[in-house]
């Protein structure tokens, strides 16, 4: 004898989120978009404040070598602003940094990934991360008081034996505070980032390929040459570009060890160089009115430059990391 049970009333099934969820999703999405807003605002404000300089100087702001703001006796201000020499110097120093820093980083990453026992590896990886956490003014201080005397001696050696190569020549044997020394300090500063990116990529090398190489009788180097490097090389390029972006924007450390001179100098050993970021803090102290605007314009140039390099670098690294999965 069955009792009649009323069938449960049909429930409405919906995928519409509740109010709490909508609030949550809305807030989080809004905050997520904030970083885009900040980045846009940085570009906008610097461009806006520097606009007057871009207009009055035109393309010579990028190509000119002179940076002068002269007030004549009658109170008339004549301005010539150009960051050309600084851009050349920035690139030159960054190239020295890459030339020294990237091979060392790659070797260090290979060493950490394939040569070191696990226990020591953890410690050394921490040390590399610690290098990244050192304040840049510490590098500046150390670079000035410890590295510079040594690097000056190395510069003398290079000058003595290799001056037939044009970049190692110098108009006068004056080697203090040169782009070479600034480049060395920067090289040490970019090593952590290039090393950790390279290490991450080397660690993604498909294990079956590594084991296949060993099974075929390869030595460690033969395995690295035939498996790891072909797989990781584009990622290393990406890591190097991240380092380049870092090198372009570094300020305090470079300023401490570089003699900023408004002249194009391609002799890396000679103690006269340029660097956009260092120039900005060099000139900031006494800058008023138009010069401040010109410095903001220089900041805009630096911002765009580093942004482009970083974006390219990140997409390269990302692509390589994906190809390993």
């Amino acid at each position, binding site marked *: 004898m069955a009792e009649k049970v009323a069938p449960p009333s049909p429930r409405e099934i919906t995928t519409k989120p509740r109010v*709490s969820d909508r609030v*949550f*999703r809305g*807030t*989080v*999405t809004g*905050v*997520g978009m904030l*970083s*885009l807003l*900040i*980045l846009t*605002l*940085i570009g906008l404000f*610097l461009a*806006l404040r520097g606009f007057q300089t871009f207009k009055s100087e035109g393309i010579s702001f990028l190509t000119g070598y002179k940076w002068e703001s002269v007030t004549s006796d009658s109170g008339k201000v004549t301005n010539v602003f150009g960051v050309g020499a600084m851009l050349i110097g920035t690139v030159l120093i960054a190239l020295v940094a890459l030339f020294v820093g990237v091979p*060392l980083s*790659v*070797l*260090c990453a290979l*060493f950490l990934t394939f*040569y070191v026992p696990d226990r020591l590896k953890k410690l*050394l990886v921490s*040390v590399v991360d*610690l*290098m990244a*956490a*050192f*304040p*840049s*003014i510490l590098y500046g*201080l150390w670079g*000035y*008081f*410890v*590295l510079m005397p040594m690097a000056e*001696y*190395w510069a003398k050696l290079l000058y003595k034996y290799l001056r037939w190569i044009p970049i190692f020549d110098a108009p006068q044997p004056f080697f203090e505070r040169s782009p070479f020394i600034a480049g060395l300090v920067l090289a040490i500063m970019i*090593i952590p980032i290039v*090393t950790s990116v390279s290490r991450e990529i080397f660690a993604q090398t498909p294990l079956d390929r590594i084991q296949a190489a060993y099974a075929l009788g*390869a*030595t460690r*180097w*033969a395995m690295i040459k035939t498996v790891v490097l072909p797989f990781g090389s584009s990622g290393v390029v990406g890591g190097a570009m991240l380092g380049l*972006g870092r090198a372009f*924007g*570094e*300020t*305090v450390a470079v300023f*401490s060890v570089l003699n900023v001179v408004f002249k194009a100098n391609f002799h890396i050993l000679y103690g006269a160089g340029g660097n956009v*970021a260092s120039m*900005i*803090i060099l000139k*900031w102290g006494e800058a008023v009115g138009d010069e401040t605007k010109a410095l*903001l314009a220089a*900041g805009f140039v*630096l*911002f765009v430059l580093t*942004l482009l390099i*970083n974006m390219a670098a990140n997409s390269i690294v990302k692509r390589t990391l994906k190809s390993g999965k």
Partner: protein
Amino acid sequence: MTLSAAQVAPQKPWQSSPKEMAPTFLLLLASLAASVAVVAITPMKGKLAYAFLFFIFGTASLSIRKWRIRGRAAAADAIVSSIALTGATLVFTPVISILATTISHGVKGLHWSLFTQTMFSASYQDPISAGGLLHALVGTLYLILISMILSVPMGILTALYLTEIKGPGANFIQFIVQAMSGVPSVVAGLFIFASIIVTTPIKASAIAGAFALSILMIPTVTRTAQEVLLLVPNDLREAGQALGATQWKTVATIVVPAARNGLITATILGVARIAGETAPLLFTIGGSDKLNWNPFKDYQGALPFYVWKGLLMGTPESIQRAWTGILILLILVLLLFVAARTLGGRRMKSK
């Protein structure tokens, strides 16, 4: 029949025995002797010559030995091994040198009144026993606190957007966050100057400095927090949803608590990133030598700024101040770093 424990004692046949290590050791010793001899008889001199010759002799002798035992490929392997070892040594030498010089120079200036006095009544050229860096410590503390208040919520929420919501813009925002982490510190300072100090009533002060530092801190917090949130197993999220929780409840009561240690690590790493930043402060805090308890008004000092002033002044006394200041800053960064590591390590173990 089961194997007894004695039978399965692990062996590592690929490891070299002391007997095999002996020739390697002897060869290295011989190369050291050879480099000393060559330096003595040729005009080459200095530490550089020793290091260079030792590298050449060591590499050559070891690889020749390998060649004789195991052939050409093994010789190439030996050469690359010693190059990789040398490269790694060159990377780690500066770290040791930096730590050693900072400690040896810095401790000379340490004394108690550093932490109780300011530079208001003393000049940087005075001996270091006069004046102190209390004002800078207070300033750095304010900068860190305000930057944390500004960037930690934003960083973690952005990370939640990237891992939990995964909205249509997630890839793009990820890209933007990465681009933001490449913004040069000097540009962050210039931006705050151009946007806030010029146009709003907020003038150079701790809060303006903290705004600039937040631009650098947000990407660091976001990226670390994102990594940690990705480590939270998806099962937990699904379990929450299966119990009928809304997404908000799942995130707030399951995902975030599960990742708590990691999120603290993210915060600490963010603080370590900005604690020593100098360039943005040059435009935004004014660099006062006076104690200022109000973070919203008037010039503020900071530890990196103190070091910077000492370095620029260039007299022996002011440089001593710079070393001592940087030592205290370095200790702060090291403490943060170790804290982040221990927390991070504990998380890994509990998994």
